[in-house]
């Protein structure tokens, strides 16, 4: 600035010129400052109005995108969500919804590329890993799908991580069930059940999946837990009935089946479902009538054993007749029967519990081998076959 200059040797006219110059420079700088301030406020106004409009546009396109996704129009959703992202590029929810829309539209390659890129910036994100797991599952890449599911379980979730992890675990269990990996599914379901809160819906959901994963024991346990909630839910009773039956606990099954059939909502069930449960009750009743349980009197027990023996021997005889050449397994079975006394009296059995046990074991083995050799049994044979799976559980409460 001229004002800072200390210079001597100027004429009075030059000094005057210098003073004018200083004033002029100051005025020029002040005017520049004023222009800058004015321009700042104009720009601020423009920017503010533009920012507000961008937010409105982002919201509007997001709503359209979500609506399109809900109405199963993924292509429209992609366009709308892309537009929304142009105005709100950092919105994580939007990004994931767009990738979901891409996947839903069958543009798996784009969806995977997008999710991979999202994952690079948020490597531990549970939701992104879950989406990648779903895409890998859809593409039939089992190993990748399992890895991504595991990463989703280990990943971070915002706010509701506890719930989302359980949902992921259940989804993983379902995937494993679909792929017939029942052991691994059972493990996941056990963890899910262990971590689940005491909520009847969750208990019913997990127990249902445990049934599918061929784990009736744990399913029954969860159904029983669900039944502790009042009022007892019909689904819980039905599940408990199924699980108890599958687990050969027919005495318990009978109890649940009776409660199921007496439940107020049971009549609202479809006819085939009602019939199914009535048949199950009938089977349970019959099994309990066939089963020589330890609670019975000695006489009653001996009578049932004799009756069961008769059923099994007839089944064996029919099976032997149907075969032109007797298979070794049947032959062995016939020999075992022959080693027993051909005629047995009730008193004989009453006095020989060991013989009772031997006969019942042979009955069960007969039903199992004949079912393998001569096809699925019907009637009492079918019931005896069921009993043979875990006879000790039949009357367990």
């Amino acid at each position: 600035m001229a004002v800072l200059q200390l210079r001597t040797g100027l004429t009075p006219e030059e000094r005057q010129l210098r003073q004018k110059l200083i004033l002029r420079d100051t005025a020029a700088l002040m005017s520049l400052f004023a222009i800058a301030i004015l321009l700042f406020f104009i720009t601020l106004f423009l920017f503010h109005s533009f920012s507000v409009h961008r937010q409105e546009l982002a919201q509007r396109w997001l709503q359209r995108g979500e609506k399109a996704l809900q109405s199963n129009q993924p292509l429209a959703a992609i366009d709308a969500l892309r537009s929304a992202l142009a105005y709100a590029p950092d919105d994580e929810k939007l990004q994931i919804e767009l990738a979901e829309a891409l996947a839903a539209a069958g543009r798996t390659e784009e969806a995977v590329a997008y999710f991979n890129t999202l994952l690079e910036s948020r490597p531990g994100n549970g939701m992104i890993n879950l989406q990648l797991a779903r895409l890998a599952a859809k593409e039939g890449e089992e190993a990748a799908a399992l890895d991504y599911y595991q990463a989703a379980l280990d990943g971070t979730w915002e706010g509701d991580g506890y719930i989302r992890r359980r949902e992921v675990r259940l989804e993983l269990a379902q995937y494993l069930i679909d792929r017939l990996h029942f052991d691994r599914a059972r493990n996941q379901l056990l963890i899910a059940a262990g971590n689940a809160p005491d909520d009847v819906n969750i208990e019913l959901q997990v127990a249902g999946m445990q049934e599918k994963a061929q784990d009736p024991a744990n399913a029954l346990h969860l159904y029983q837990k669900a039944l502790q909630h009042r009022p007892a839910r019909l689904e819980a009773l039905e599940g408990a009935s199924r699980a108890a039956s599958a687990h050969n606990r027919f005495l318990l099954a009978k109890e649940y089946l009776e409660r199921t059939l007496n439940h107020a909502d049971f009549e609202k069930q479809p006819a085939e479902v009602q019939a199914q449960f009535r048949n199950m009750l009938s089977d349970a009743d019959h099994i309990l009538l066939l089963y020589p349980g330890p609670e019975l009197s000695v006489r009653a027990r001996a009578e049932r054993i004799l009756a069961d023996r008769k059923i099994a021997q007839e089944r064996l005889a029919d099976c032997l007749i149907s075969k032109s050449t007797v298979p070794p397994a049947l032959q062995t079975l016939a020999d075992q029967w022959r080693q027993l006394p051909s005629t047995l009296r009730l008193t004989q059995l009453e006095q020989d519990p060991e013989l009772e046990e031997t006969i019942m074991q042979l009955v069960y083995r007969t039903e199992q081998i004949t079912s393998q050799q001569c096809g699925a049994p019907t009637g009492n044979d079918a019931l005896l076959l069921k009993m043979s799976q875990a006879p000790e559980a039949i009357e367990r409460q």
Partner: protein
Amino acid sequence: MSVQPMPETVTRKFGKAAYRPLTQAELEKIAPTRDERLFLVLSIFIGVLSGLLVVSFRIAIEWIKILTLGSAPHAGQFRLLIVPAVAGLFVAALVHLFFPAARGSGVNQTKAALYIYNGYISFKTVIGKFITAALAIGCGHSLGPEDPSLQIGAGVASMVARRLNLSRQRLRLFAPIGAAAGLAAAFNAPISAILFVIEEVIGQWSAAVLGSIVLSAISSVVVARWFWGSEPLFRIPTVTMRDPRELIAYAILGVAGGFAALVFSKALGYLRPQLRALPQWTYYFQSGIAGLLVGMIGFLGFPQVMGPGYEVMDQAMHGQFAWKVLLALALLKILATTLSFSSGTPGGMFAPTMFIGAMLGASVGSFEKLFFPHLTGTVGAYALVGIGVLFAGFLRAPLTSVFMVLEVSGNYSIVLPVILANMIGYLISRALQPVPIFEVFTHQDGLELPSMEEAREESELHLEDALRPVDVPVIKGQQTIAEAAQIAAAENASAFLVSLRDGSWYAMTAHELTSAGPTSTPDTAIERILPAERTPILFPDMPLDSTLHHFPRWPVLPIMNRASKGKLEGIVTQDDVLQCYQKH
């Protein structure tokens, strides 16, 4: 180029009273350091004003885009055909009737202002550039706002400097200062903007202007970031480089980028003069037709190529497209930009160059992800490197290209891929297209501006290039006049060097020796008859031209060794220097 030259004297009003304008000589006398001091203060003002204008410029583009093309242009919308075509017609009329200097990108116009018009850019040009470029870009022409921002910044600087009645020399320096401010605000990357202005506008590192360029660039970026935040162009993705094998993929990207830059340059180099050679009346329609064709690309399925495409670059960097789509976008952007730019529509080349590079890079990255999933490079990293490659190959700014990627990514782990790919792209482009694109444009416009690429690579001659062994007699200062005369006579030398005790030298002619006779005896030591002055101290690495003004005084110049005082490396004479220049 229709930029008006600056008038010799500028008469201005101060308040209501007219005052006599001061001449530069008067200013020099009454305030000799005024220019120098104002220079730095004004640099900040220029930065702030440029930053605000550039932010407004970009908001204007976005508003125009939303109002004309809608908030989400999609393929199949008829407005994609109509809007750029109508805007093209309107912009062409504005350019030809009111703002002829607004045509083109803005980089060459700024260079022309610097080298031809003493830094003069009119207010009308700034306004014209703002309006026409905002309209064209906002309505979907495939052009970018950076080069116009550069020119707007330079124009602001020119206006401010003129208002303060600065010297012509200073006025000329303000153009690159404003250009850096405008570009820095547009890029939101001050280092890249400074480097670009040095590489492409002024062509050399000048200490006189560097400080002001830095000040203005930083001021403008501070303003821009106040509004846009730190990532106004696009979100920078995660950038990693863990596996050295990925360098192969980056090298492939360099090759692809080099050829893409070549295709882009050739297309522009061919179409632009063809369109300019058409009758003048067609100029009114060229932008409109270009807009229609660009709109057709959008209408038929690729609206992403319309406008600058920052959001598309963002999407590409974040993996939203498959590699085939990305490749198609890169190729279609070359076509669309060639059409828009060749038609004379105001708008810049930077954003399209970045777009093409980003698409190409993301395409290579996505391809790698798909077929070589074990490699760890991110799609975003490839897109960023792709931007650098196109900058190096197409704009021929290799230094800027490297620093831009580093600056925007904020991650030095990407430096190897960037340097490798950029260098390959640059070399391929340069080998196949020797003349850089901005130079091609200047030649097409009938201008002769200095080539920045040549200026950067011009090898300066040094004293070592003209140096020859000491073949003149060397006499110690203590030796007598008689001895010196004897030695000189024996070697028939017209001049000889005198070595003095303090390590300094004196180059003496035979005539000086003989003329010393009347005032001294033959036994007088040479050092006693020498005047106080000594030959200049010169070293082999000094510029050759630094010797020229010494030759009227000295017949021969000793060249010293920097390591040991008084030791000679050789000598040079005027003939040696001139011969050296003739050889080069």
